[in-house]
């Protein structure tokens, strides 16, 4: 399958760290490593519970709890 590619910018220090890290691995390039890591992270998050959305009822509950725990006066 021919995939289309785009460009992203990441800090040079990360690129250098990844270059070091992949020396002893089967990854042939920084791009290959970064693609693998991002796919894993996205897959993991997708498989987990859906993200919660904001509700006023939850906010009131947590506010009360934070007060009981001494975080809010």
């Amino acid at each position, binding site marked *: 399958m021919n995939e289309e590619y785009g460009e992203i910018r990441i800090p040079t220090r990360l690129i250098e760290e990844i270059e070091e890290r992949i020396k002893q691995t089967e990854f042939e390039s920084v791009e290959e490593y970064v693609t693998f890591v991002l796919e894993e*992270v996205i897959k*993991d*998050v997708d498989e*987990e*519970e859906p*993200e*919660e*959305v*904001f*509700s006023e*009822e*939850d*906010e009131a*509950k*947590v*506010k009360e*709890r*934070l007060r*009981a*725990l*001494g*975080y*809010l*006066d």
Partner: protein
Amino acid sequence: MIVVLAIDALEYDLVEAFGCDNLKQKFYGKTDISEFSEPRTMVLWNSFMTGENREKEVLALGDKEMWNIKLDIKDTFFARFENPKILDLPGFNYDKEQHELERGMLKEFFTAVGDEEKAEIRKKYNSHAFEHHRRIKKEFADALSGDYDFVLGYFSAADVIGHLNFGNRALMKMIYRDMDEIAAGIDDTLIVLSDHGMERIGMFGDHSDHGFWSTGFKDLGNPRITDFAGIIMEISEVE
């Protein structure tokens, strides 16, 4: 050197769910904090340091004043080490200004009106907590290469960020993975300990009724947080 990775609100269930093997080490489990009326951070770390349930003394100071507690080292088990290094621990030497600012922003979040304003405060709050996290991480790494016989690093990001973002799994996973990497970099005798865990209230987080512990050397069962002073001193005598 004995190292304690003291992680506020590290939740047992998330350590499992996110596969944080370095935080789990060989033996791990939940701590029993049922003797306390509420899982309050300041009460629990005070009790850890002294080896005694300090709930009554801490609560007697009131919700505002309790955050100013600064125990003398001679009242803690740290004094039994020759050259201990303690980083940012509540009730001992934590960065009061930083944590006051966090609580101030929490208050600001709950009094703000409208989604946009809340989102802006949350962003500022998270960024502030991460900045502090990075600073402690650096200080902790430096301490590990220092000439100390006991190092304790207190990390608050899972708690601070968790209160407003616990429903955001990706964000929580990022924090847990980072803590796991920190644990992976420790070659000395390590105890991972949290005061309490965290449970979800929608997108927010509340303290749960158990803490987390792990060691690489002994199954501690279901210990109380006050047991750790004795456990750590026992190890130090063997070492």
